Structures are given as structure tokens and as C-alpha cells.
């Protein structure tokens, strides 16, 4: 028996696929923004906070980084309702992804903050800048410039990881793929097309981050 490839049934659903792409992009953007904020706060708390806060953040980072995202997603989506908190698929997906990225971003930004020389902070203080001003201008910005490549690589990984939210039926690109699969039985075709779309998104994202980095960190 020879298999005949048939992409027509897949193309016929292009608007449905597009809706999945839109959800994936929206989920990625929301996660990146919220996750980076948690990362910046977490890193600051990890380096400058009181000891109890430091160990709390360390515990958060280690717990998240040593367990799979899919299990975290299941805990938020299936587990929390039994604790009295019922969430729809999309909010649950957003929360799980944000908590996950927050831990990785904390670790990445912390490395950047620790790379800023002490003397630079003292120089800032001696110019009469307040603690918050020193943190913003003297520590965080140079730190972000140092870790920008690592951070954006993590963002691309998050975009790819959004495919996992299909497992709790959030309507992202991968979930759309599984619906089309069950409608058309064109398993290989739909997953090949979806894989190509993810690849295109990853490439576009990489170039976009490179361009943004160039604009944001060009002046020194």
C-alpha cells in the first residue's frame, strides 16, 4: 500500500490554523512580559533581599526548574480546582507558563546582576542616586544587556513550550492541529505543516529579538 500525501484538506482549514497561531503568539507575548517582570523582581529579591526572602526565591526557582512544565500545568489546571480555585484553560495556561518562565528569568537575570561590579554600585551611590535609582540605572539595565542573549533564547523556548498547553485544551496552534487531525485523519500532513509554522515563528522571533537588542543596547 502506498501512502498518498494530501495537503488539500489541511489547507482548507487555514483560517482555523491562523486562529491557533494568533493564540500561540498572544500567549507568548503575555508570558514573556509577565515572566520577565517576575524575573526582575525575583532576581532583585534573590540578591538584595533579607535572608528569608532569598531562600524563598531560591526554593521557587529550584522547584520550578527541576519539574516538567506539563506537570506544573496539570497541577494548576486539574489540581487547583480541588483546592477551590477553578480556572479556564487559557488563564491556567498563562499562569503556569508565567510561573515557569519567571523561575528561569530569575536565574538568568540574577547571573547578570551578580556580574555588575560592586564599585559601579558604589559609584552610583556616591553620585547621590537613591537605592531604587541605582538598581534601575546602574544594576538592572547593564545586567539586562549582559544576559539579553540568554534571556531571549529562553523566550523562544517559551514560545515553543506553549505547544504543551494544548494538553489542557487551550486553543493554541497545537490544539488546533489535533482537532484538524481528528476531523481529516491527515495526521502526518497537519503535524508537518504545524511544525513548519513553529519553525517560521521561531526564526522570526530570533531575528526580532536581535533587532530589538540592537536598537535598545546600541547606545552606550
Amino acid at each position, binding site marked *: *500500500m502506498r*501512502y498518498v500525501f494530501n495537503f488539500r484538506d489541511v489547507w482548507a482549514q487555514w483560517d482555523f490554523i491562523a486562529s491557533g497561531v494568533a493564540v500561540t503568539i498572544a500567549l507568548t507575548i503575555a508570558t514573556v512580559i509577565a515572566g520577565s517582570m517576575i524575573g526582575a523582581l525575583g532576581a532583585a529579591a534573590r540578591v538584595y533581599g533579607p535572608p528569608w526572602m532569598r531562600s524563598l526565591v531560591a526554593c521557587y526557582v*529550584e*522547584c520550578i*526548574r*527541576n*519539574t*516538567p*512544565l*506539563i*506537570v*506544573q500545568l*496539570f*497541577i494548576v489546571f*486539574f*489540581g*487547583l*480546582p*480541588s*483546592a477551590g480555585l477553578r480556572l479556564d484553560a487559557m488563564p491556567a495556561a498563562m499562569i503556569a507558563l508565567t510561573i515557569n518562565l519567571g523561575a528561569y528569568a530569575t536565574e538568568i537575570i540574577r547571573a547578570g546582576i551578580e556580574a555588575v561590579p560592586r564599585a559601579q554600585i558604589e559609584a552610583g551611590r556616591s553620585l547621590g542616586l537613591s537605592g531604587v535609582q541605582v538598581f534601575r540605572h546602574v544594576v538592572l539595565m547593564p545586567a539586562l544587556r549582559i544576559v539579553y542573549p540568554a534571556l531571549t533564547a529562553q523566550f*523562544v523556548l517559551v514560545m*515553543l*513550550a506553549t*505547544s*504543551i498547553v*494544548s*494538553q489542557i485544551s487551550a486553543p493554541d496552534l*497545537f490544539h488546533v*492541529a489535533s482537532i484538524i487531525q481528528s476531523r481529516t485523519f491527515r*495526521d*502526518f500532513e497537519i*503535524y*508537518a505543516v*504545524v*511544525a513548519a509554522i*513553529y*519553525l517560521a515563528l*521561531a*526564526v522570526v522571533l530570533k531575528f526580532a529579538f536581535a533587532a530589538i537588542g540592537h536598537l535598545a543596547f546600541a547606545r552606550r
Partner: protein
Amino acid sequence: MIREFNLIDVYYLLLAARWTLALTGIAFLGGGLVGMIVAVMRVSPFAPLRLASTLFVNVVQGIPLLAWLFVFFFGLPILAGVRISPWTAAIAAYAIYAGAFLGEIWRGCLQAIPRQQWEAGAALALSFGEQLYYIIVPQAIRIAVPPTVGFLVQLIKNTSLAAVIGFVELTREGQLTNAATYQPFTVYIVVAAIYFAMCFPLTQWSRRLERTLRVAR
């Protein structure tokens, strides 16, 4: 009737964790083989090889692992003309996936060795393969160990995705246990704790190796 979640379930989850470890081990072996080839191609003096391996790494890293699993699970039967088990699909997908990441990690280690070492080898009339084998690799292995252990943690966590093509490992066993007991919070917390117990020692080990390396330099 829905039964209670009790110690016997924890025992079954621990048994399922063996399959997580087995899949990790096989994926690491397969990925290590692919990764070695990729890393050597990436530093080879022959441009088309470098280009091909760069393309391979970028394509694999630009597509979610979940998509690789499905493409292999549904695609291999079509291309090879045989029905395949979740085992075969998972091993193929993980070997490709781990190969791209390990190849990239090891390329970095090979390139971290100063150029002069290559040149010294060339001055002694060693071929590319001999330079690599006698001079570069023995030095690169030392710096390759910490990031490789770190990647092992990634791999353990990512084997959880094999659950979606029906491979019964820790996460899938968690889903099955949940279906029987309907106590998702307890079940998935236990599953997460088992993953943590497997990954955390490796994370710490990788960190310690890194520190020793920094002191040694």
C-alpha cells in the same frame, strides 16, 4: 467506585519513574551519538558540512519537541511503511532532539579550546581527525561535563512529553492514577516531587562541577 489515593499508588508512580529514567538513558545515548557527529561537523574545515549541521541544529531547535514526537509517531509509519510503537517513535524523536542540543553544547566546548592548540597540532603534521582526537577532545571533555549534566536535567523533564503519544512513564502513570482516584492535586504533586528527586541532585552536581572547574582554571 472511585478509590482513595494511597501508598500503593505512590509505589506504582515510583515504578513508572523507572521508565522515565530508561527513556532518558536511551535518549541520552542516541542523542550523544547524533550530538558528537553534529559537534564535529560544526567545527570541520569543510564548509558544506558546517552549513548542513547548522541547518540541522536550527531546524530541530525551532520546532517544539511535542511536534517532533507527533511527526515521528504519525510520520514514520508512512515513510517506513510499518506500524511503530510509542517506544520507537519516542526514541527517534528524543535522539534527534537531544542530538541537536548536545551537538550545540559540545561545539561550544570544542571552540573554547584556544586556536593555537589546533595550530600546534597542524604544525606537528596531524590531520584534522588526529588534532581533534589527540589534542582538542581530551581538553574539551573537561569543560563539557557540567553543561552536559545540566542538559540531562532538561532531558529528564522533557521525557514527560512522551506521555502524550501513550508512552507510559511517570507523567502518563500520573494521568492514569488520577483517572482512577480523581485526586489530581495530590497525584500531580507526588509526580512533581518524584521528578524533583531525580533532577535536583543532578542540578546540584552540575553546579558543583562548574565551581570546581572555575577553581581549577
